[in-house]
């Protein structure tokens, strides 16, 4: 619940030591890296640039927080967490690159990962774009299909009779189980991937839509009918908008599943994409690349989630103030 997130930190007047401590933690991470030489020679500039940039950004925000109360609250709230991140970075750097205690190649240091990401940025970017394209096609078609299926099942008795059992039985099968089928039937690994992501997002969206339609208050339909609406108008102007919150619940569930299916499908037989990249890097025991790809995934998928949340907020603007969000 939102009102709990601030805890004891947010909104407190006066001086909080945590923001300067967080900046200090990143300064230590940077200083430690500069002062202590690595076990094996490596280009440390990209890592230093990154840590230095983060420290500068935090310092900038901290400076701004003296003028803007909103920024102050946010900076103070996040400061403890960032202080911990800075210390963790320092410890990780010391134990890996600087002391060589973590076994290689499986546990590289942050320096190695950042350097590999810089050196291989073209391939990483290409893979990211491939993954995003596959995700977009599969997720969009699966979601649209899911909404249509859900509406048909929720709306029509005939469709409900024939389609609902299929949805219930086929939907719970993990999409990746269809990989052999997809590879045998479809001409390319790309289409196989689209197919798998589509069916894995189809199920939760269809189910949520069906349930959403089933739980609409009858009085809305009655009101619409007494106002002269026919079935088609009711579907478009009552059933679908009333179900929109449920549809988005299904979409949220589908997003996580789709990310998983996306990576697995790319690991099997694809020629590009982040999943392929990880598999390929693993083949060369280039674990720094594996971690770099994972870091990119974390960033990109977070961005996709943020985008979906933004769309959801726009579509469900009418709900603001009604729900606990």
């Amino acid at each position: 619940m939102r009102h709990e997130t601030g805890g004891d930190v947010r909104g407190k007047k006066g001086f909080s030591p945590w923001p300067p401590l967080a900046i200090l933690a990143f300064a230590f991470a940077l200083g430690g890296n500069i002062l202590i030489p690595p076990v094996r020679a490596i280009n440390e500039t990209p890592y230093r640039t990154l840590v230095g940039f983060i420290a500068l950004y935090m310092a900038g925000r901290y400076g701004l927080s003296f003028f803007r109360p909103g920024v102050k609250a946010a900076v103070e709230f996040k400061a403890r967490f960032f202080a911990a991140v800075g210390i963790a970075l320092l410890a990780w750097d010391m134990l890996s690159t600087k002391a060589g205690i973590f076994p290689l190649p499986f546990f590289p240091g942050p320096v190695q990962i950042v350097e590999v990401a810089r050196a291989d940025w073209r391939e990483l970017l290409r893979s990211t774009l491939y993954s995003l394209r596959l995700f977009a096609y599969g997720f969009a078609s699966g979601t649209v299909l899911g909404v249509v299926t859900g509406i048909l099942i929720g709306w029509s008795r005939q469709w409900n009779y024939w389609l609902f059992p299929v949805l219930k039985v086929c939907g719970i099968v993990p999409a990746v189980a269809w990989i052999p089928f997809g590879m045998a039937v479809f001409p390319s690994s790309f289409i196989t991937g689209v197919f798998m992501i589509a069916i894995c997002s189809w199920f939760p969206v269809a189910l949520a839509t069906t349930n959403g339609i089933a739980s609409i208050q009858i009085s809305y339909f009655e009101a619409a009918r007494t106002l002269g609406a026919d079935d088609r108008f009711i579907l478009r102007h009552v059933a679908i908008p009333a179900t929109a919150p449920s549809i988005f619940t299904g979409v949220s569930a589908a997003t996580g599943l789709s990310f998983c299916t996306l990576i697995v499908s790319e690991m099997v037989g694809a020629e590009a994409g982040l999943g392929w990249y990880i598999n390929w890097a693993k083949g060369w025991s280039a674990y720094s690349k594996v971690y770099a790809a994972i870091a990119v995934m974390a960033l990109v998928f977070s961005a996709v989630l943020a985008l979906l949340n933004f769309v959801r907020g726009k579509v469900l603007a009418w709900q603001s103030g009604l729900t606990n969000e």
Partner: protein
Amino acid sequence: MSSPSIVINSPAAPPVIIEVKNVTRVFWDAREKSEKSVSALENVDLSVRKGEFVSLIGPSGCGKTTLLRLIAGLDAPQSGELLVEGEPVTGTSHERGYVFQQANLFPWETVEENIAFGLKARGVYEEYRGDVAEYIAMAGLKGFERSYPHQISGGMAQRASLARALINRPKALLLDEPMGALDSFTRMDLQEKLLELWQKFSATIILVTHDIDEAVYLSDRIVIMTPRPGRISEIIDADYPRPRSRSSARFVELRNKVLEKFHLAGAEAPVEYAI
């Protein structure tokens, strides 16, 4: 039982618009624990003239809402006939506007969109789009066009609901305790609004209520219903001049008369009036 539906075809009286003939409605999924089926309505007859303001009053379970839903076409009887302007009721129609106890506005639409819903549903929005602002003003909702239903008060929502039904210019307005959930000040406010609209549109109104004062204050005729089985026990003419006063002798007299009928009918009056 007495036959309250006898229509005297005097030339002065406006024509009958709604006829309920010997209607019976039984529910099997009973809420009463002891009974397998409940006769929500048994052999009910009622005629309503054009422009009349009729109240259906009685304790809960007397079938007043069931009767209203049958007239609206939201429900169908097991036996009997329902006629509107001589035509049998086969389903809902925009010509019979219905206002629910809860405002029942669509929460995903703004006040303006809610009020325009009927016009859009019937495909006449372009033609009558100018009406929307007029009905918003009439409902006293100017400035709230872009508000969502949860952002306005209960009284405002109920006025929006009225406007939403009225914009279709229905021949009859069916009101299912639309003021039941409002506080007494808002309720009196809405009663005045309702009278104003009724006169302006020369509408036919059937109002379901359990508030005797409300029925006596608003109606031309008060239909008293009794439960188990749901029946019309008495119809009282409340033909005293308007504008009315809640403290006039005639008002008090009618109010007592209605109360008395409840006791004579052997049923309990609604709780708040039980002596």
